[in-house]
């Protein structure tokens, strides 16, 4: 899977959690919580959804540091 494909799949998950209608509108370098609209109280939903989607275990601290689709893609790529 290319980095772009990975980012697209992450954007789909983010769009569901943030209730964004158009996943393609989610820029990979925008802050998920401040700019995309993921509520901070939905962080666990996002984390568990990403773990299920990509069948990985994401360390909490690394997840907390990854605040964009792009950085989540780097993180997940490194765990696969």
């Amino acid at each position, binding site marked *: 899977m290319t980095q772009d494909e990975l980012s697209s799949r992450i954007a789909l998950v983010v769009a569901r959690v943030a209730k964004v209608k158009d996943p393609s509108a989610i820029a990979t370098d925008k802050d998920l919580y401040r700019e995309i609209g993921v509520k*901070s*109280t939905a962080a*666990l939903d996002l*984390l*568990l959804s990403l773990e299920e989607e990509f069948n990985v275990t994401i360390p*909490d601290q690394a997840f*907390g540091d990854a605040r964009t689709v792009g950085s989540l893609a780097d993180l997940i790529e490194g765990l696969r």
Partner: protein
Amino acid sequence: MAFTIKLAKAIGDELAAAVEDQGPYAAPEVVRVRVSDDRTEVEVDCEAGCDEEVLRPQVERFVDDFVKRFRAVAGKVYKQLARTRDSGQMGSGVFEQLVERGWAFQLGDGQVGLAGPAMKLVEALDQRFRRMAMGEFGAVEHRYPTFIPTDVLRRCGYFGAFPHLVSLVSHFVEDYRKLKEIRDANAESDRVVIPDRDAIVDAAACVTPATCYHVYQSLEGRTVKAPGQIFTASGRCARYESTNMIGLDRLWEFTMREMVLVGREEWVTEMRQKGMDAFIALVEEWDLECTVETANDPFFAPVYATKTFWQSQGGLKYELRFAVEPGPGGRPRTISCGSANLHEGFFGQTFRLASSDGAPVFTGCVALGVERLALAVFTQHGLDPSRWPPALAEAVFAP
């Protein structure tokens, strides 16, 4: 009657404590919930004559809601304080001794009256915190009602996060016929009788569960001067804690003094830190054993996992936990007597607060649970002033 629920896997201490704490809310017939020592089973004690077939699924669902999505986040200890001037033993049976001396009165479930040195200590602690907030931080003092409109509490998210703790304030309907029925039914009765439950109107108010909610409501739609403003208030609060209400440890109704921070995000974060450090300096002044560590609020089961993860990961809540007398089996025990909190932009958005420089408004607070801290002082320094810090002894025991 008792039964056991097996967990899919062992749970950690924090989650076990939360399940035990909220166990009495699982069903009216549940008396106590205990997680086994190996953390793989939940033992449920119920009232005699319960139907296990009916009760078990209800308790299983309660436990499942707690456990299924929970993800523990490693806690962080910010500071550990030891007593430096008083090496005396921790007291035991402290509340009972206060009652025996006539310094405390158990008046109802979670309702305790105070007199003498216990009353003076509560006042001294509150006033010292107030002096810190106003003197060191320039906080503006407000005074608020004990009640808060139910809808304001709803807007604060309280019914979603803590429905089990809500204390509603109601009254009888303005209906002469129904009022007379109540009057007649109670005229000769030795207990309260309400012949028609419809005579109780929906609660338009609650007893506030925290002092700071009033601050946000009082600022609704207003502009806060950048970088931020600080308020302080002390008030009576209520949190219903079911069968957990014991002595001064867990009161239904209690006093909370808060310093409330409203302003730009980075300023609120900085002030929360400074406020927590100033609170810690007071703890040192009072010579108390205390641990300051990350913590979570007692969120209701269905939202426990998501909310605690959010709070823990963001370091949004620190508690000041004080050593008190050991629990069953001599286990060391601490109680939370204070906290330092960040709420991100939630209250700023909910109450349409604006900053004079156009930045989003964030909020935070530093809170003191006054009666609990008084219990910690009596436990750690005894009921005799000889071991107390002189200034506190003077304020509490001087004739």
